[in-house]
């Protein structure tokens, strides 16, 4: 029990810290949203007069606002009530609404591809470790090279080959807007999978190497343990030795790495979403930063920090279940 209490207390402190940083960081950025808006309006050929600044300040409510302490109190109070404020870029839409629009896309794309990359990587790593020196083992340098290649470059090359030279895949978007509407229909889901396939591929290709290498090395280390030798000496079937004796122990470090990457899923991938014009959180974050939309930035950062914390908490607790040693030591 004490173990769980300690964990929860730690996460409460971490949460407060994340929430406070989240309040401070956007305010340390230069510029203010009204200036950005005015320079955009000017560039779009809309008339700008001194009164325009005043009107925009009234519209966006950025004129006064009190000191930082007052703002901080207000911010905490709003958070407790689940109110993330109003997005300036999308005024008067609320931050919750705007993030809600983007989040499903990111979770589906980045989440699924992270899970696929993990399962494939760990699975292949297991076999590579089991049969050292086989062709599978020789695949590892190739996958790590793919991981070392800058991600944006890999993605752009794939876009050039597979959407421009050969128009096998769409170059942008989350689904075919001309033929279907979002909803529970086979057509929409099919279209969304088709549109998400290439971005998902790039993520899998560029991250599988790490999982594979980590799992393979842990597998090799575990296989030299005495209990594996004992299991083999008992005459257990190789398959059983591989899965329940070697792999179960070897997968532990990868599992905690997986938890962290799952936490970052909601952050989306700014680069992926930029390259493929994918309508997710990464692109939203980009827009909010370039428009000094504090409320939206804070909302996104909050969602990211919460999910990283939550993913870690869950894995911490799960870990204690999978590996009793951690619980005993705490």
């Amino acid at each position, binding site marked *: 029990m004490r173990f769980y209490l300690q964990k929860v207390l730690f996460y409460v402190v971490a949460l407060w810290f994340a929430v406070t940083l989240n309040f401070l960081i956007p305010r340390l950025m230069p*510029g203010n949203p009204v200036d950005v808006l005015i320079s955009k309006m000017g560039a779009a050929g*809309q008339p*700008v007069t001194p009164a325009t600044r*005043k009107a925009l300040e009234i519209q966006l409510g950025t004129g006064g606002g009190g000191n930082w302490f007052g703002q901080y109190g207000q911010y905490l109070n709003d958070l407790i009530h689940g109110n993330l404020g109003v997005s300036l870029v999308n005024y*008067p839409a609320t931050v919750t609404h705007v993030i809600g629009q983007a989040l499903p896309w990111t979770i589906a794309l980045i989440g699924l591809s992270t899970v696929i990359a993990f399962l494939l990587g760990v699975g292949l790593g297991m076999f590579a470790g089991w049969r050292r020196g086989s062709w599978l083992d020789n695949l590892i340098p190739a996958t790590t090279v793919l991981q070392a290649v800058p991600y944006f470059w890999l993605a752009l090359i794939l876009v050039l080959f597979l959407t421009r030279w050969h128009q096998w895949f*769409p*170059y942008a*978007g989350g689904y075919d807007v001309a033929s279907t509407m979002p909803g529970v229909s086979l057509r929409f889901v*099919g279209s969304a999978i088709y549109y998400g396939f290439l971005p998902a591929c790039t993520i899998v290709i560029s991250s599988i190497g790490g999982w594979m290498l980590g799992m393979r090395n842990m597998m090799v280390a575990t296989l030299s343990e005495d209990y594996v030798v004992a299991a083999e000496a008992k005459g257990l079937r190789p398959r059983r030795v591989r899965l329940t004796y070697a792999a179960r122990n070897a997968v532990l470090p990868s599992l905690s790495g997986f938890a962290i990457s799952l936490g970052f899923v909601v952050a989306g991938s700014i680069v992926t979403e930029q390259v*493929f014009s994918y309508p997710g959180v990464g692109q939203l974050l980009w827009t909010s930063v370039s428009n000094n939309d504090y409320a939206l930035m804070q909302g996104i950062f909050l969602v990211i920090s919460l999910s990283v914390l939550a993913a870690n908490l869950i894995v911490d607790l799960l870990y204690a279940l999978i590996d009793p040693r951690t619980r005993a030591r705490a």
Partner: protein
Amino acid sequence: MSLSKKRLFLGATALAAAAALVLTGCSSDGSSGNSSGGATTITLFNGSVGNFTENFNPLLSTGAELQPSQGVLYETLFYYNMARAQKPVPVLGTAYSWNADGTQLTITTRSGVTWTDGQPFTAKDVAFTFTLFQKNPGLNTTGATWTATATNDNTVVLTFPSTSFTLEPQLLGNMAMVPEHIWSKIADPAKETNTSPVGTGPYKLKSFSAQSYVLTRNPTYWGTGDEAPKVENVRYISLANADAATSALESGQIDWMGSYLPTLKNIIKQHPNLSYVNTPDSVTDIVACSNAALGCTGPQTDPAVRQAIYYAMDRTQLNTQAVAGFAEPASAALLVPSVNGDNIVDQANASLPQTADVAKAKSVLEAAGWKLGGNGYYSKGGQELDLSVNVVTGWTDYDTDCTLLQGQLKPAGIKLSVNQVAQNAWSQAEVSGKFQLSLNSINPGASPSPYFIYNNYLSTSNTAKAGESATTNVSRYSNPTVDAAIKDVASTNDPAKQKVDYGVIQAQIVKDMPYIPIYVNQALTQFNNSRATGWPTQDNLYAFPEPWKAWDNGIVLKAIRPAKG
């Protein structure tokens, strides 16, 4: 977990992964059709990024309103074309007149117009809309006061406390008319998202989703013949960047977009259906924090230094290398010659030196007391001629300009360091006056009239001390002669009298040069002619053709027609 359960779990994941792969394989022959039921649908990309948030409130100016709200769904009284010199075009208004001292504006409104919900549009709606702007300071971007009354079903009279000729384009050409029977029930119009828009425009909303929305032809639109919309549907989409937009254009999936594409001429050559228009947009210039009296510091506060930069730059090289030769020559009067040529009084100010004149630059500096040092740079009173220019990272044309300028100014003994910053920091530096030079552009105001440019960028009332926020006159320029002339322009609507004042202003700015003009930045617009034709062309700029331009959008959409039949 027991062995059998574990096996089951692994098996299930493998099955799921396999199923996902099969599904993707099956659907990869996804069809892409752009027409629905035979009716023409055109697709346009106006620069939107990411998800759309549903907001069709035409009274806003924050950019949160989806752009077709202004001009396509809702209309103004008149239309002001920024692409060429042209009289205001009647839209919901048919005529207007000022009284002699500019305190009363009488507008005749169009009859026979109905809102898309079937109610008639009358002068009462117009008076209501003007009063609505007046009652909501957050919506009234003019900051002016007026009273609006409908004297009968077709006449509205606006009364102002003082001479207000210069408000004309803002009131007539930049305020969307909304129906009284709907908006009088809305408590806070600034917070309204107006998801079922009722307007008078050529199109109305058909369907909306966060990634695309469709407008359809308004069957009860007031215009007939050439004035009636002919293309059935218009689809708006969003893309993340210019690469995706290029792909969309080349694969024929976009009919109308406006992006700067350096390889545009090649793309057009390979795709006979595509065409483009190059429209003068704004004057690219180096803004100098020019006024030491208002707190600017650095060598650029000396007019001779600004003059020297003016002569030392090679504008031909800047144009060819930074913007692929798409720019046009600007004028020393800071006006776009092809739009405002008539208002440039002294023809000597109508053009700029297109090549570098290093000798002239040097002589200007030497006449002002600068001495050439052993390191090849000028200095005066122990201060070296060392300037820094701010430019936004990632605005590739501006970045190239700055890099080139660095090399061009060196032979003239001027040291330039380029300071690439993020857009927020760049605009904050300008607004607060904490910069030396900054690459920006001079944008026109509510109408092509030079008044708006001169008032915004030169008048003392629009500036502030360095350290405080200046509205639009970020160079901190302040000149009583110019201020008096600007005031004089505002007091009359006689073009001949105004032109005399423009001459006075131009003589001063050519001498003082608070903004050093480079070239006229051109806006490139791309069209696909296979589904619709009748787009604006270089010879017939009946509207500013960019798809992101408010009000002009509606004019273009009702001018185009389906390509076949």
